[in-house]
């Protein structure tokens, strides 16, 4: 996904609105362009982010918002979502737009690095220097916290789940690279599936 580097998307289509609606953000049409969102946005005060414009471009299907940095300037402070008179879940929609951008291969280098750290250690901010262990000791704590850092088996679980959701493919990491063999035991999967999921739902899920 990330081995080519497209510059900018210039499409104008209906797919933006459709995918937002499909994901449950049916409110997208309700935006009246009042600008309340931009007015209270602490990021827009200092960056190119104009939330109101993002919402308009979504309605019009102008897809350049996916290839530009603006949606990544949002600090997810939720001020716009709280204040929108039409009750658009704006911040959540921006997060969804980010997902679409990543699917199209637009991800910032620093974010990719963060993802790698997370995939390999189970922590977005891992203990990657021995001074952090010493610091823990200084405050009377165990050198290594009782998280995935102390439990190999749990880290393995996290990696398996990342493979299961295909997160590793999204950021171009091979499952073998993560130290996990591709096949999970099919029998276990199907057996546990029965417990939670009806036939109908099983069909739906097979598409995931």
């Amino acid at each position, binding site marked *: 996904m990330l081995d080519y580097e497209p510059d900018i998307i210039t499409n104008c289509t209906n797919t933006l609105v459709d995918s937002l609606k499909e994901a449950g953000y049916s409110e997208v049409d309700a935006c009246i362009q009042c600008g309340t969102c931009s007015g209270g946005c602490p990021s827009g005060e200092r960056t190119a982010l104009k939330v109101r414009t993002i919402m308009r471009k979504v309605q019009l299907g102008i897809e350049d918002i996916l290839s530009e940095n603006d949606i990544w300037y949002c600090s997810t402070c939720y001020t716009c979502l709280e204040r929108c008179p039409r009750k658009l879940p704006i911040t959540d929609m921006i997060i969804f737009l980010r997902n679409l951008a990543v699917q199209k291969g637009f991800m910032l280098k620093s974010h990719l690095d963060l993802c790698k750290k997370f995939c390999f250690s189970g922590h977005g901010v891992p203990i990657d220097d021995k001074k952090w262990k010493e610091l823990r000791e200084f405050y009377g704590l165990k050198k290594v916290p009782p998280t995935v850092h102390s439990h190999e088996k749990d880290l393995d679980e996290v990696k398996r789940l990342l493979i299961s959701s295909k997160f590793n493919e999204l950021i171009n990491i091979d499952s073998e690279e993560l130290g996990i063999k591709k096949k999970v035991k099919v029998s276990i999967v199907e057996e546990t599936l029965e417990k*939670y999921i009806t036939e109908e739902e099983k069909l739906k899920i097979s598409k995931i």
Partner: protein
Amino acid sequence: MVQDKKYSLFLGCVIPNRYPFIEAATKKVFQKLGITLVDMEGASCCPAPGVFRGFDIDTWLIIATRNLTIAENNNYDIATMCNGCYGSLLEADHQLKSDVEKRNMVNYHLSKVNRSYKGSIKVKHIIEILYKDIGLDKIKNRVKYGRKNKLDLRIAVHYGCHLLKPSEIRPWGKDSETPHFLDDLVEATGCKSINYLDKYRCCGAAGAVRSAFKEISLDFTREKLTNMRAAGVEAIITVCPFCHLQFDLGQIEINKIFKDRIDAPFNIPVIYYTQLLGLALGMNPEEVGLIKDKELSGVPPFISIEPFLTKIGEKLEG
């Protein structure tokens, strides 16, 4: 006092791996209040709501739910010390409780590692536990320092966005713009919560902004610090390690990056709420992690807490 109450303590990343004194102080202070915080063995990153959710919502939901199942197996509600972890875990729990399709999708993935989500526990921020479960009155009754020797420092309270919003999925009622529960908790210790311009604004760290655009993210913080300084505060109180980092390490970074845009370098001590509460309950500064490891370099607290400790010392002796 609540007796023998237990919670599953969710650590997250920044607290155990960068700001461990928050973990140490919170455990001790809760112990003193009669609450045991049980570790969640094998928990991972929450994963960060503004970061990993922005890359893939389903992955975020699956990993967050895996963390929830650890607490379900412990059988104790979750207590978090981080606004980001709070946002992730609370919202994941909320989504799975209200959306069968999502729950099935997540349980399908979790079945591969022999886990399943049941929806049997609640997610709380430690501030909610202190304010709602224990209550202001009980805390005030436990505070050791009375009228004579009050800890009456001038404090800038910083709530942090994800503690308050989206308000629909938070326990604070409709008012996300001017709440006062944290001010009340700070004042319960004898300190004064000082009003400052745009008090409820974002610190700028979240949403993966700090990692990609550090200067932009620090510009949010610069504005907040300027307003705090103008109000004449003696310390900043946080309830989130990422806000904490943004104010603590952030001041050092701002003093460099924005050298020409600030009147003078910033050096306001940054204290986590449970550290302040611990002092008020009669614990000594070392017990609540208000001490600097002088052997190690490049570790927090980056802004000296000495001025804060000196003032506290004067108050408590006087």
